[in-house]
Structure formats: C-alpha cells, structure tokens
C-alpha cells in the first residue's frame, strides 16, 4: 500500500513537470531510451547536463562582471546551453536562454544581465524539482512509464 502511494507520488511529480511546462516532450524521449540495462539513464543524463551547464552558467555570469565583455563568446556559451537544454527537454530554461540571446544580440547589456539572472533562476528551479524526483525514483526502483 505504502509502495503504491510512493509510486503515485512519483507519477504526480512527473506529471507536474509537464503541467508546469518545466519539461517538454523531449524529456519523454529520454525516458523512452531508458531500459532494464540502464534503469537510471535519465538521471545520469541530467547529472551530466547539470554538471556541464553549471560550469557554462558560471562562465557567463563571471563574464558579465568583467569590464570588457566579448558578446560573441557569451553568445557561444548561451548557444551551447541552448542545445543541451533543448536536448533534455528543459523547456523553461530554454525559453530564458532564447530570450537572453535575443537581448544580447541587440547589445543590451543590462537586459542581458537580467536575462542571465532569470536563466539561473529557472535552472536552479529545475534542479530543485528533479533531484528529489530522481532520489525517490531510485529509492523505489520505479519502472519507467512509457
């Protein structure tokens, strides 16, 4: 009974990611690639994504503090973040990246700073939502809903 309750909780958490548009259909695509041989695949992918994206975000945030900012270099980093965020289905993070790149393209420095702040906010929100979800899944070895 308790196990069923936990599974329902996990399913509800997962559904909330889509309802709140935190994740999109590409997250489902990742889940499709998970199987018995690799039951924690999605979590491993997100571990990789969070590790690399944290470094990229920190680089961009550091760059905003320097006097001379290379917009081209910043755009390159944001571009990379865009690709990886799109690939894991991180919808809200992706939306903020796209908005920030548009502002950066216009040379709006203050707008770019604000955009990066929003990106960081959505990114941290995503991590905060997914980490307990994966922990609960792993602790209860939930078979993937397809």
């Amino acid at each position, binding site marked *: 009974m308790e196990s069923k309750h936990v599974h329902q909780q996990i*399913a509800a958490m*997962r*559904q909330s990611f*889509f*309802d709140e548009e935190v994740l999109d*259909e*590409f997250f*489902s*695509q*990742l889940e*499709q*690639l998970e199987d018995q041989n690799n039951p924690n*695949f999605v979590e491993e*992918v997100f571990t*990789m*994504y969070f590790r*690399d994206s944290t470094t990229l975000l920190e680089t961009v945030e550091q760059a905003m503090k320097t006097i001379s900012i290379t917009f081209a270099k910043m755009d*390159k980093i944001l*571009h*990379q973040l*865009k*690709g*990886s965020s*799109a*690939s*894991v289905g991180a919808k809200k993070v992706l939306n903020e990246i796209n908005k920030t790149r548009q502002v950066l393209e216009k040379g709006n420095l203050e707008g770019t700073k604000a955009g990066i702040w929003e990106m960081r906010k959505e990114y941290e929100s995503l991590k905060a939502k997914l980490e307990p979800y994966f922990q609960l899944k792993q602790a209860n070895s939930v078979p993937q*809903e*397809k």
Partner: protein
Amino acid sequence: MAPTLPSGDQASDQDNWDNGRLARKRQLLTEIVLRNRLTALVVDGDTTCRVLEQLLLRSYGVQTQGVDNGRDAVALIASGVKFNLIIIDMILPVLNGLEATRQIRDMGVHCKMLGVTACSGESERQAFLAAGVDVFIEKPLDPEHLVPILRELDGQ
C-alpha cells in the same frame, strides 16, 4: 506517460493533435528494425548532446563513434574510417562545423550528413547546407527526423 488531457472538459483539437503527435513519436522510437549494420559518426562539442545523439542512434542498432571537435572529425575521416551517416553540429571547438563539413566533402565523402545544431536562423541553415550537409535539423535530434533517414540508409 504522455501529458494528460485536461480533466472534465472536452479535449481541444490542439490537445488531440499534440497527443497524437506524441503517440506517433513514441511509435517511431520503437518501430524500426534495421536490416543492415549502419555506422554513424557524431560530432558535437557538448557532452550531453553528443551522448544523447549516440544513444538515440544506438537504440536503433546503429554503431556509433563520437568526437567533440571538428578537427578530430576531419582527421578520423581522413584516416579512412567510413560511416553511413555523419551527424555534425555547426558550432564546434577547434574547427567549426561548417569548415569541417566542407573539408569532409572535399575529401570525396558522399555519405549522408545531418547538420544538427541549436542554430535556428535561415542564414545558418543555408550556410550549413551550402557547406555540404544534406539535412539541417534544429536540436534536439528526434526520431521524426532520424527514423526516415535511417530507413533510407538501410534501403527500406
């Protein structure tokens, strides 16, 4: 589990279309059997993207190799290694995807090349196609684009 329809009210046409599209995507992910052993090179500087693209290909039985920059991709092809498919990003470290694609084509390589990139502008699309990719796909690489190409390469 697909995102569910709104409870209570009649599902809208848009909801029905979205759910139908998701169902078709899931079908594509599972319903393909390749008769031949295909090989693919994935060229992407981002680890997450490269790993995911390789895993997606492997889920269809495609043997893959991955490199994280354009120079290594060109060197690998120049060494004589052959692939049925090359998936290449536009923005790459060391040697960018446009130049890497040109150099690969200049070597006389005629295999299918997919430009899979986070770039979405028409000028980027035209530039990548002009450099030599056969298909331009905005990231992420998904089964809807990939499966028909694999079937074509498999001679189905």
